[in-house]
């Protein structure tokens, strides 16, 4: 059964309001093909033509006090239905979101109030070969709530994960959202929609560690005045890896700020697509939007496609955008080698430093884990372990060394 056909025989009762709306949408849109603009550099032909069997469930939630977790099927309670309706217009990537809506067998809801101290982790281990899994997550932060959410997507076999996450931030709420895409031979097509009320803060870090296909469509609607989103991302591709990040931020209120800062390293025959959009129209005063995408190309066979674009209709917007595709800094390489660092080590140190800067703000121990995961992907990556050691210059603290190996 080809991927699209799975929707016609969707098993179980699913999530009723999602399924009924998505069925019609999917009939109208179908799945993206060669001519679909947003999929120009990322072919899903293999995925749409191969046999696929819907897989059930798959989200593992490691919750924290202060967060209610609901796993819902069939008809939804009125409050959840209301939350869903409020975030619905933010969803990007209509095709796969619709497929997810038809196939999703449950809706997982995280409902947070107040300051949630411990991070909440949601893990998806990936679908088995020949199957498609469609996890669906809704995250709701009440006004003034604070939460750190870690979403992990793994992949042990060659299945397809078509994941949809929706986020609603109440007034003055703050979400630190870290997504790890580490899918190896599996494929991930993820959609993430965020709706922000007044003065809310959304801070996202997406880490894509190669993979056969890791695609994310992220759309943020800044609906309330004074809201802010910072979208950071880093990726590393090697071999035949293919990653694709499509971002879209819409400013709908005055005094809202958005930043997009993505960095990637491309080796082997890896491909990375970055398409970042910021739309600032009719917002009134005080809008600020920045976009930056930097790529380090390490091999002739790798390809970077980058397109940051701003859509602005008045002059008062403070805005910047830029994209670079460059190679390693030869002067820095020479400097390191002239001090005795072997060539391969020097390259890895520079590559790691380039990506590592974006990890700086991630909470520990996740930051160290991600730094280690990056290290493992780089040749002679172990040299960067020495770069993580705490070297303290303050003599008052004994020998000034913490955690020396």
């Amino acid at each position: 059964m080809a991927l699209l056909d799975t929707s016609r025989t969707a098993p179980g009762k699913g999530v009723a309001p999602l399924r009924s709306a998505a069925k019609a949408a999917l009939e109208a849109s179908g799945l993206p093909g060669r001519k679909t603009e947003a999929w120009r550099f990322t072919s899903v032909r293999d995925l749409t033509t191969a046999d696929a069997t819907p897989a059930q469930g798959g989200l593992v939630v490691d919750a924290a006090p202060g967060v209610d977790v609901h796993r819902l099927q069939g008809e939804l309670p009125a409050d959840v239905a209301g939350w869903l309706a409020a975030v619905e217009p933010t969803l990007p990537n209509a095709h796969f979101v619709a497929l997810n809506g038809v196939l999703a067998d449950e809706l997982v809801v995280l409902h947070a109030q107040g300051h949630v101290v411990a991070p909440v982790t949601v893990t998806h281990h990936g679908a088995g070969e020949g199957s498609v899994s469609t996890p669906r997550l809704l995250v709701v932060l009440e006004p003034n709530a604070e939460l750190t959410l870690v979403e992990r997507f793994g992949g042990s076999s060659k299945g397809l994960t078509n994941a949809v996450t929706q986020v609603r931030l109440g007034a003055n709420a703050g979400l630190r959202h870290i997504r790890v895409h580490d899918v190896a031979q599996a494929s991930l097509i993820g959609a993430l929609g965020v709706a922000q009320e007044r003065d809310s803060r959304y801070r996202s870090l997406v880490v894509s560690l190669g993979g056969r296909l890791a695609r994310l469509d992220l759309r943020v609607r800044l609906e309330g005045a004074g809201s802010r989103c910072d979208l950071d991302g880093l990726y590393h591709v090697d071999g035949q890896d293919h990653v694709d990040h499509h971002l879209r931020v819409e400013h709908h209120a005055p005094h809202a700020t958005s930043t997009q800062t993505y960095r990637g390293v491309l080796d082997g025959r890896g491909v990375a697509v970055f398409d970042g959009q910021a739309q600032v129209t009719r917002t009134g005063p005080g809008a600020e939007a920045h976009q930056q995408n930097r790529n380090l190309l390490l091999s002739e066979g790798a390809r970077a496609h980058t397109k940051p674009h701003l859509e602005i209709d008045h002059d008062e917007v403070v805005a910047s955008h830029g994209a670079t595709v460059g190679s390693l800094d030869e002067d820095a390489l020479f400097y390191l080698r002239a001090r005795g660092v072997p060539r391969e080590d020097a390259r890895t140190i520079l590559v790691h430093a380039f990506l590592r800067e974006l990890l700086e703000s991630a909470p520990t121990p996740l930051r160290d884990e991600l730094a280690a995961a990056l290290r493992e992907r780089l040749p002679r990556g172990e040299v960067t372990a020495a770069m993580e050691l705490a070297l303290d210059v303050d003599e008052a603290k004994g020998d000034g060394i913490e955690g020396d190996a």
Partner: protein
Amino acid sequence: MLTIENLHASVDGNAILKGLNLRLEAGQVHAIMGPNGAGKSTLSYVLSGREGYEVTDGTILLDTPDGAVDLLDMEIEERAAAGVFLAFQYPVAIPGVSNLHFLRTALNSIRKARGEDELSGAQFMKLARAKARTVELPKELLKRAVNDGFSGGEKKRNEIFQMAVLEPRLAILDETDSGLDIDALRIVSEGVNALRGPERSMLVITHYQRLLDHIVPDVVHVLVDGRIVKTGDKTLALELEAKGYDEIRQAAAI
């Protein structure tokens, strides 16, 4: 310590060094002076093995405890392990790499290449703190990314700090004094003088006689148009400062 014979080198097909000869004994400090574009930095890059500098003729031999080695056969990092150190005219900033981590990795790479034990974090920090004091390098700069946002003087001090930690056999200082005020010059010079010793030789490239009041050279060479055209003692630097290069150019019939 260092023997350069008939060295010819070119960049992008342009001949820059045109038969350079120089002999530097162990423990000696030689100054190299010369006009802009004479090939002074080119010489320093050829010695350290920078890519893009093609040696078309000549030999460069360095004495090591294991006998003389031909630098031209060696990779950049192999030369560093053999004891070559270049203090850059324009030190490179490396965002995201901390000064201390970088230097520990460099030192341990060199020690490893020589078959010596690597230094632990604690051993390294003890060494680094002591050496930082000798060039009055503030602690904050040790933690910052390599040369990133450093002032001109801080970069030069950082170069000498690294030299003090790495303890090279052959140090090449390319205009380490340029752009320094008199206090910074004194600090840097004292740092360099503290490193003078019977088993260490230095090539000090400078435009200014002033430096040589602080770091007193055994020999002064004048490099013009890719060749050493005159060699003398430290009074030659005074003479150059008074008369300029024209007279020497004419005498050498260049």
